[in-house]
């Protein structure tokens, strides 16, 4: 039987690329059978808890551990003094700075790690931390980044005083971390000086936290008999952790095993290496037993990796038709007390230079200054690729301001400035080569779907009645898939990723990758890629990640890099297997390779019906009947160094109604069109987009980490920190176009972060739009009811 229907049936049975295969992971998750770090139990395991600083800036006069050590069940209390002989009281950060593991002489932010207590159980440890007596002398606190480089500012990092050569540039002040620029300053300034129209908008991208449901933690286990250290850890980059642990501990990398078990969400929070991990590892090495440390919610929000805190000014120069002539962006970046951003080494401001957006901008200049303040360190990519959220926010907000000034509709001004379909690949004036795009089609599809003109008419009527209705629009371009090793590395390791695929004699498959799933559904989607490449049903393909003893070295999962890099490695490794399979098939069928053609799951001899070998036949033969001179077996490894980034894009539209008396906002409609190139699993894409939009909604409408003047964090519990549930979350409408990446083996671009990156400025755009007729050009996030109400009050719109 060799009909079209048969071929289709075989194709369908693969559950390959393009089908909405059900997630392999869900069976265990929905039954509560996941295996998270805190589920790990080991014989003799002890528990750690952290003594933390109540002050944002203070000198440590003394630490008295006697009472804590006297509590029955307490095994050890580690302080900086204990780590000093091992030279582990400070550790290097991914950003070229150092960070205190346990506070050494000074605390630099509230909740900073001061001492680690190790006890028989979690409860004794918690009691014991209350018994550690720390005497502090309070110091002046620096909270406002705008005051960091003034003459009066207290100097935070005494360890860096006088060291004016920073990791990325010369430092201008003891509280200065780096200056980073892209583009041409003079040429940009000249265009601005001569421009017909210019606009300038200040905006604060406030400090937020990824707040994954599972907090960070680890179980460190030093086996003194065989000299092997095993650490179960909530890490988005287990291989990088292994390298760092090896470098810090002096253990050979082969004696360090890092395992990332199931992870309850990462969103950038689990990329870095935290003091708790290092202190727990030291405790296990010292005590010779496993030590578990898991953060509570307050510790997670307060200390492990915040995101954003970018104080930005966006400026555009244009002609009177709204055609952009130049872009200027200035950023003051608050990095907290230590620079522990997780960016590729050469990019201290991440990929902020994607701030030219989807637009054909002739010249631009970007200037970023990073400063220290008495706040927790971090600056991670919260569901985005290295500062892309900030970049998209500044360009999209400034585009709206320009449209408003010129009286041009915000859809029209985007249309006029888009990079056109035929211009791809397009090199931006700040140096990215956008791989592919079709921005006009995406925008028009959204405008048609929502009846944009109708919405504007409705808005006119509502305004006439004194009602507040806003329409937000964003057309974003993201840069993901870091990245080409010629420009991207972490601690000197190129940002490739890897896949190792083994086809068993019976034709089932075991594949391992250097990435690690945290909810993305890798066990489902990687199998689909292999299924389509090799003609083996995805149900017989097992995917394993996260154990550095078994999986090939990879840089991990963040910045939407799994599909662009790991997915590419998977496809290329599968193709290596397919190439060998073809040779075996030719041998079995006694024809030349050139006489063979591939069809779904088999090689066929061209023009000879019935002469064919399925991949299952070939797999069996690979272990008993290979051509002379060929080694048996059927497996391949690929380390994929991407030639370029990928550039997913989208057009988002949001309609809001604002209650004039209370400031309460109703998100009436949110329409999200994404183009992530080839779509591997549409159901998972929809899920990712729903999740990303919801986190975008959280950031734009409620999440914030407010500090008072003394450096106290006032929003570190879920009483204050906004984590939307189904109750608050609006309804999402999703749509798509498909513009494959020309350089990716299967044309896929990555999608998980686009909805977060794209939605946040869309909410602000809608909120501002509701007040645009009253000459409001910008409102800083979060747009919670109180802040919106204050805006309403300031405009004198309240009835009484």
């Amino acid at each position, binding site marked *: 039987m060799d009909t079209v229907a048969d071929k289709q049936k075989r194709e369908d049975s693969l559950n390959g690329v393009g089908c909405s295969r059900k997630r392999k992971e869900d069976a265990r998750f929905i039954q509560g059978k996941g295996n998270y770090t805190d589920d790990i139990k080991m014989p003799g395991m002890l528990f750690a808890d952290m*003594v*933390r600083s*109540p*002050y*944002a800036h203070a000198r440590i006069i003394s630490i008295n551990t006697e009472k804590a050590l006297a509590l029955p069940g307490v095994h050890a209390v580690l302080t900086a003094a204990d780590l000093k002989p091992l030279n582990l009281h400070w550790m290097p950060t991914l950003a070229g700075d150092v960070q205190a593991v346990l506070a050494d002489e000074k605390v630099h932010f*509230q909740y900073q790690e001061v001492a680690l207590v190790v006890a028989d159980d979690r409860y004794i440890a918690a009691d014991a931390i*209350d018994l*550690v*007596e*720390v005497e*502090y002398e309070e110091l002046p606190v620096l909270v406002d980044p705008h005051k960091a480089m003034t003459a009066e500012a207290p100097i935070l990092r005494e360890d860096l005083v006088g060291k004016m050569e920073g990791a990325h540039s010369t430092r201008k002040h003891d509280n200065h971390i780096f200056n980073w620029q892209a583009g041409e300053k003079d040429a940009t300034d000249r265009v601005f000086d001569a421009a017909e129209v210019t606009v300038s908008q200040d905006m604060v991208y406030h400090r937020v936290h990824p707040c994954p449901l599972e907090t960070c933690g680890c179980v460190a286990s030093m086996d003194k008999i065989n000299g092997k250290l095993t650490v179960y850890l909530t890490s988005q980059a287990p291989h990088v952790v292994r390298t760092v642990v090896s470098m810090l501990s002096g253990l050979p990398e082969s004696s360090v095993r890092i395992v990332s078990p199931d992870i309850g969400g990462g969103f950038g929070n689990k990329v870095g290496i935290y003091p708790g991990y290092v202190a727990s590892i030291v405790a296990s090495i010292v005590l010779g037993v496993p030590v578990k440390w898991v953060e509570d919610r*307050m510790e997670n929000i*307060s200390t492990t990796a915040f995101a954003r805190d970018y104080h930005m000014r966006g400026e555009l120069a244009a002609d009177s038709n709204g055609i952009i002539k130049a872009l200027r962006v200035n950023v003051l970046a608050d990095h907290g007390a230590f620079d522990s951003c997780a960016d590729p080494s050469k990019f201290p401001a991440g990929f902020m230079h994607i701030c030219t957006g989807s637009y054909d901008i002739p010249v631009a200049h970007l200037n970023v200054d990073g400063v220290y303040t008495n706040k927790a360190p971090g600056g991670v990519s919260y569901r985005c690729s290295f500062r892309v959220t900030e970049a998209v926010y500044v360009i999209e907000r400034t585009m709206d301001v320009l449209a408003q000034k010129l009286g041009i509709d915000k859809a029209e001004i985007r249309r006029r400035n888009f990079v056109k379909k035929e211009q791809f690949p397009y090199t931006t004036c700040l140096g990215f080569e956008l791989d592919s795009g079709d921005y006009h089609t995406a925008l028009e599809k959204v405008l048609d779907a929502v009846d944009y003109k109708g919405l504007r008419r409705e808005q006119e009527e509502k305004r006439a009645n004194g009602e507040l209705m806003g329409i937000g629009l964003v057309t974003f371009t993201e840069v993901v898939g870091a990245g080409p090793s010629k420009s991207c590395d972490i601690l000197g390791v190129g940002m490739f990723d890897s896949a190792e695929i083994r086809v068993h004699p019976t034709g089932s498959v075991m594949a391992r990758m250097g990435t690690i799933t945290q909810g993305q559904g890798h066990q489902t989607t990687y199998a689909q890629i292999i299924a389509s490449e090799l003609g083996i049903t995805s149900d017989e393909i097992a995917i394993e990640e996260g154990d550095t003893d078994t999986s090939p070295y990879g840089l991990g999962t963040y910045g939407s890099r799994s599909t662009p890099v790991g997915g590419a490695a998977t496809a290329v490794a599968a193709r290596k297997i397919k190439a060998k399979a073809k040779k075996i098939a030719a041998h079995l069928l006694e024809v030349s390779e050139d006489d063979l053609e591939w069809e779904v799951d088999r090689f066929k001899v061209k023009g000879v019906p019935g002469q064919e070998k399925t991949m299952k036949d070939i797999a069996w033969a690979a272990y008993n009947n290979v051509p002379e001179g060929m080694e048996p077996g059927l497996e391949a490894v690929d380390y994929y160094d991407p030639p370029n980034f990928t550039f997913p894009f989208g057009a988002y539209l949001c309609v809001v109604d604002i209650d004039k008396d209370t400031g309460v906002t109703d998100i009436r409609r949110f329409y999200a069109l994404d183009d992530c190139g080839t779509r591997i699993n549409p159901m998972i894409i929809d899920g990712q987009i729903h999740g990303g939009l919801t986190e975008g909604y959280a950031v734009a409408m409620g999440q914030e980490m407010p500090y*008072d*003047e*003394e450096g*106290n*964090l*006032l929003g*570190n*519990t879920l009483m204050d920190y906004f984590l939307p549930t189904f109750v608050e979350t609006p309804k999402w409408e999703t749509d798509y176009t498909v513009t494959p990446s020309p350089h990716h083996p299967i044309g896929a671009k990555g999608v998980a972060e686009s909805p977060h990156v794209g939605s946040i400025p869309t909410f602000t755009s809608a909120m501002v739009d509701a007040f645009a007729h009253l000459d409001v050009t910008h409102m800083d996030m979060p747009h919670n009811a109180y802040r919106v109400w204050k805006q309403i009050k300031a405009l004198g719109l309240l009835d009484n």
Partner: protein
Amino acid sequence: MKVDLNKEFSLPGTGVQAWTFLQDIRGVASCMPGAEITEDLGDGNYKGKVKAKIGPATMAFNGDIIIQNIDAEKRELHMIGKGQDTKGSSSATMDLRAWVEDTEDGKSVLQGVATVTVNGKAASLGGRMMTQVADQMLNQFGKSFANNVASMGEGEEAEMARDKIAEQPAELNGLAFAWSVFVGWFGSLFSSKK
């Protein structure tokens, strides 16, 4: 986290009586439920402690009290209290100026201006209630102070005041205190001050 408070308490005694009592640091400290002076270090420096139970949380602060100035002419006391809770997770500072003014009816008022700064977990967790909590603590202080001034006199009123002082709880009463905080907060919703 900083809160500025201005308070005025009518006192049932004369200005002279009130001023006499205001200079008795141990007596003044005892007006704060749960507070006591544990050590006199001389030169206007004292060690003291405050224990408060609010809802499920017990907080015990150990700290120093420093008398910055006693101005007999203005009848004004300036003191600074600094404390750290015994768990090391929070700290509080109060800078207080209190003075006595005579009133036309021959009695007096106690005026107080205080800046309270709270750091650590107490600020993170209790920040939103801090104004109310500090306000209520001062209200209890004010009542107790008034009783003490009244007790310096003679007659039935002074007798009653002495009884009240004797009945005063040794530490801040959690439930009643939480209730008064709530009432204070609820009241502030309808006040036009903000």
